[in-house]
């Protein structure tokens, strides 16, 4: 009775062992140099936004070239230019680029127009797939699925997993004189804002224009930056643009809900504590203000934190800035899913070489190096490393990634953004009231998306 059981167990054990051995052998057998031999001598050209993560990649590329003989060329452009270059290249079917690094909001447009290689096919090819690379275990799953997948299909891997959170001057908030004055005026201790009332109080307290110092700084220019910034307020107040669970889903438009209107009115109320040119600011401007020690708190991107809190050649506030999640409202703890993703166009003539490079870049060592040089990795194990933990923004980044809210990646997402930017900017400029601006935005978005996007809150 016992013997068959022992035999069965032994057989299962052997099978598991064999499977493990096979996997280990495979892992040992796969070698980048061997895998890249057929493609040695090819040149892959990639394009992305001119920011530290891409600069870090460019510095690492020669190592890949040395190992594989595949030459890597990197083109770097300003945000909009990097997007427009790719759009034109894809629609011309020219195949200039072998790897495109794009914001994830563009994904639906590219995927539905069949511009992209489905990466799963390459992942299934044992000649190309590095068995030690296991994205389903090694990446932030929500971020990966939102940033690099569309309608259940896998198109790439995150180049950066971006998020916005609160930056504040930790030295000022810890100053006993400021603390005493603040407590006397507001009746509670000065500390990093946990809710929007505290955030406003701190902005008001530190608003000292006669000294060239401001409580906060809004990104109020008619630019995508305005939309991205306001989304933090919208989500935190418990609102959203569409009532859906994932970025690739279409659903009821709720961007003119009472919560959304309240978030927008609150957002504008901060303008009085922001520098006079705030309606002409986007992310570069507010980052420069923080670098020059001219602002007490603001909400900004994680991929800009390096230049403020680590790079002493660019910032006067290294060691004086703290980072935390955006203050909480009815929506609780929030972050926003955003990121740039590696994608391979179907028109590329060097798709396999491109895949090998992307896969190589996703390896732990490269991810760590890129992250330490201003990147924003999609691998939790990178955040867990002691070197990353030392970075002042590591905790806030991780927490924001864990609470990230998806945003639309539908083919019409660029136009949705454009509509919202226009209406938000109109409200800030005093052309409209908050309700009217968001009603117009909701109506236009509903018309744009069609029958899948009815308006939950009719326009007044």
């Amino acid at each position, binding site marked *: 009775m016992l013997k068959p059981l022992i035999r069965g167990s032994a057989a299962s054990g052997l099978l598991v062992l064999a499977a493990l051995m096979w996997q280990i052998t495979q892992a040992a057998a796969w070698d980048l140099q061997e895998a890249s031999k057929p493609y040695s001598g090819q040149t892959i050209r990639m394009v992305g936004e001119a920011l530290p993560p891409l600069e870090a990649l460019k510095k690492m590329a020669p190592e890949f070239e040395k190992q594989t003989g595949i030459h890597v060329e990197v083109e770097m452009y300003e945000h909009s230019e990097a997007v427009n270059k790719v759009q034109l290249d894809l629609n011309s079917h020219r195949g200039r680029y072998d790897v495109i690094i794009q914001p994830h909001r563009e994904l639906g447009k590219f995927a539905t127009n069949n511009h992209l290689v489905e990466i799963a096919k390459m992942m299934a090819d044992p000649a190309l797939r590095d068995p030690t690379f296991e994205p389903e275990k090694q990446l932030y799953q929500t971020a990966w699925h939102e940033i690099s997948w569309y309608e259940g299909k896998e198109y790439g891997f995150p180049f950066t997993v971006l998020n916005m959170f609160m930056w504040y001057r930790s030295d000022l908030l810890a100053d006993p004189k400021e603390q005493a004055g603040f407590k006397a005026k507001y009746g509670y201790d000065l500390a990093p804002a946990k809710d929007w009332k505290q955030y406003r109080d701190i902005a008001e307290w530190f608003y000292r224009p006669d000294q060239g110092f401001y409580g906060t700084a809004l990104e109020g220019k*008619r630019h995508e930056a305005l939309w991205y910034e306001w989304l933090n307020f919208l989500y935190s107040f418990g609102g959203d643009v569409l009532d859906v669970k994932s970025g690739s889903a279409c659903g009821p438009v709720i961007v003119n809900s009472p919560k959304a209107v309240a978030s927008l009115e609150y957002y504008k109320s901060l303008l009085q504590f922001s520098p*006079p040119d705030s309606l*002409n600011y986007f992310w570069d401007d507010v980052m420069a203000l923080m670098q020059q020690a001219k602002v007490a708190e603001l909400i900004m991107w994680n991929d800009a934190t390096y230049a403020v809190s680590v790079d002493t050649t660019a910032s006067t506030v290294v060691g004086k800035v703290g980072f935390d999640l955006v203050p909480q409202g009815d929506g609780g703890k929030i972050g926003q899913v955003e990121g740039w993703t590696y994608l391979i166009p179907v028109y590329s003539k060097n798709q396999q070489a491109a895949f090998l490079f992307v896969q190589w870049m996703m390896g732990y060592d490269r991810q760590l190096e890129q992250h330490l040089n201003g990147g924003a990795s999609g691998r939790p194990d990178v955040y867990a490393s002691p070197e990353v933990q030392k970075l002042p923004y590591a905790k806030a980044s991780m927490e924001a990634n864990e609470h990230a809210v998806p945003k639309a990646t539908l083919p019409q997402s660029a136009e949705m953004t454009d509509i919202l930017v226009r209406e938000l900017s109109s409200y800030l*400029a005093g*052309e409209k009231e908050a309700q009217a601006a968001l009603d117009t935005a909701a109506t236009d978005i509903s018309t744009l998306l069609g029958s899948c996007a009815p308006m939950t809150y009719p326009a007044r």
Partner: protein
Amino acid sequence: MTNRTPSPRGMPLLDRGVGPLLMLPATLLVVVFLVGPFYYMVYTALTDLSFADASHSGSFVGFDNFRKLMRNDPFFWASFLLTLKFVIIAVGLEFLLGFALAFLIFRFVASQRLLTTLLLIPMMIAPIAVGLIWRLLLQGDFGMLTFYMRKVGLLAQNAAVLSAPDLVFPTIVAIDVWQWTPFVTLIMLAGMMSLPRAPFEAAMMDGAKPFQIFRDVMLPLLRPVIALVLLLRGIDAFKEFDKVFLMTGGGPGTLTELVSIYAYRVNFRNWDLGYGAAVAFMIYLVVLILCSVFYKAVYWSSRKPAAAF
């Protein structure tokens, strides 16, 4: 003396029928870069082509885009009217200042060549550079002009020109005037210098006063030049894009969203190329109509006094 028929070798090339052949390169250039794209734009305007939406792959939709433009697009018309306002104010000021400057130089300045060379500087700068220069000068925190304007009390301490809803439009007009007034000056000065002396001498002999000579002799004679300069500047101002886009991006709100910026958004942000082509065609059509009406009006009335004279 006998008549000799010249041999074909001795004939000028044009007489040998080579003329049309010599025009071929220029004709080809015009067809490939102007006529062809224009007809393609007209064709695209009749389709639903979109690079964003895969279901809009360029099917023929007749005049749907134009119907939407005429009936359901208040933002197009708002930007169109704003552009007209920009053209009228900017070109009007440029003309008045340019004309006055040209007249002063014509009458009172001896070394005109040096002065005109100096005047040319703003219009020689690329519009992108002009936008960048002014953006920096007017930057709210460290802009040099902002600093001095605040210092002399022209600007409130808590204001910034490009963020102030009531200042931003006048500012873009002023910058256009700064850049293009010298162009008007130059053309008007050339016009003044080429005027015949006889009508002026006749008017003086008849006892006409200086203002009468200016109004009744100089202005009618300059009318074709005025028409030309207004037409050139009008068309150019209607297409204004670079400077304004760089400085304000069309904002705050829609306060500086000129029609060219609107067309850019439709075409290259939203990639709605069918509708974008309709927008572009509409701009072309309106400019064409305005120009021909304006030019005919001025040219026609400029012929009457000339004939009478």
